[in-house]
């Protein structure tokens, strides 16, 4: 497997503790490119922390996380992440995307076209020159997707990207995510929203109290969950989705 791809991603007995409490508890799994992966679980199950460990924002307390081809420091990243609350720089929407390209070492003359392409993919070209921080929440989140997408990463981590958005903004974000998925980027998304998991996911990683309890295809997971926790979660969550 030395085809240059950063996949597969392997986690071996990964734990993460903070304040004496295990937030992620001995998780082992392998993630392949292709089907989009939903990390599902209740609040506090460890979804965000697991994604941050994969993305390299946190270091595991124990265990190992290995990408097939580790990233070289300084080289453009082949993975990107969109957070629940987008963090926009105090500059235009255009400049926010261009900033990511600059950090990745893309020479200035090539940036303009890439930025325009990224803004087009999320339907924000008409707002390119507005200051990013005065855009609406949904627009900011689409801009965050454009910024993450500008370099066509191999994997895109999404941490509850629609948790603080209204239904119409949520639909827009979901259609952008689908388009990225269709364009060949591996999507790994944390959510506690079952409807969203069904709409966007191919497979489910179900977390409960920091442990990986179940891994199944979306159809299988929702029709016949194998674990009692997953069954209870599906039952409990359904009325609100």
């Amino acid at each position, binding site marked *: 497997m030395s085809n240059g791809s950063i996949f597969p991603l392997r986690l071996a007995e990964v734990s993460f503790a903070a304040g004496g409490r295990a937030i992620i508890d001995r998780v082992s799994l392998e993630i392949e490119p292709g089907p989009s992966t939903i990390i599902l679980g209740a609040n506090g199950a460890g979804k965000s922390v697991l994604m*941050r460990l994969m*993305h390299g*924002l946190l270091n595991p307390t124990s265990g190992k996380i290995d990408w097939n081809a580790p990233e070289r420091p*300084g080289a*453009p*990243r082949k993975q*990107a*992440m969109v*957070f629940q609350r987008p*963090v*926009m*720089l*105090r*500059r235009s929407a255009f400049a926010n995307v261009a*900033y*990511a390209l600059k*950090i*990745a070492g893309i020479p200035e003359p090539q940036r303009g076209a890439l930025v325009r392409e990224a803004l087009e993919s999320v339907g924000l070209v008409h707002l390119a020159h507005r*200051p*990013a*921080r*005065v855009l609406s929440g949904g627009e900011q989140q689409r801009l965050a997707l454009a*910024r993450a997408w500008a370099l066509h990463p191999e994997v895109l981590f999404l941490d509850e990207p629609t948790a603080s958005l209204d239904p119409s903004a949520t639909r827009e974000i979901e259609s952008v995510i689908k388009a990225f998925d269709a364009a060949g980027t591996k999507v790994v998304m944390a959510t506690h929203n079952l409807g969203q998991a069904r709409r966007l996911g191919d497979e489910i990683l179900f977390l409960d109290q920091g442990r990986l309890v179940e891994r199944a295809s979306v159809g299988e997971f929702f029709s016949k969950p194998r674990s009692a926790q997953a069954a209870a979660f599906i039952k409990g969550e359904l009325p609100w989705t």
Partner: protein
Amino acid sequence: MSEALKTAFELLVSLDAKLVEIVFLSLSVSLSAVVAAALLGLPLGAAIAVGRFPGRQVVIVALNALMGLPPVVVGLLVYLLLSRAGPLGPLGILFTPSAMIVAQTILILPIIAALSRQAIEDAWSEYEEQLRSLGARRMNAALTLLWDTRFSLLTAILAGFGRAAAEVGAVMIVGGNIDGVTRVMTTTIALETSKGDLPLALGLGVILITIVIAVNAAAYLTKELAQRRYG
């Protein structure tokens, strides 16, 4: 008293040559000190804000404490450095505006560094994950934050300017309050008041307060406008 106020007002309105010269020297000394302290203090504040090094907390506490440096003590230290027998004596700048700039720079450097450190560290806690996710190194992140907090940093710089323009102890000691050479607004006010010549002192007092208020109003407005425009 009312007589003194009236004369002060006349001095202001007629743009009395002596008064203008004193105001001009004051501003050029304090603005030079602000530029020097900002050039040193902003990068220093940014480095401490995003840096991780042993003794960081000690540095932060020390920097905050130094914000309250007594001007006369700074004046004394700079005097000792620059006096003929001192280590920097050969420069021969004691009792010149250059010495006053050095003293005020030292006085306000901790103010600008400490306030910018605070502003940048607050921004860093908001931006850190995003910037690291994009692959930004700490050096890049520090520069990004300096630019992104530029309106807050303006406030830090102006706090430094206010302190420099208003202090009397340091410039008195290292400048010597020499008429036409190192006499600035605050030292003139101190001298003329003790001599009993109130009009010039009052006139300068009015100008000093006006400058400080105007500068702070400008800073406030800039920040408000920027907030509305850039969020």
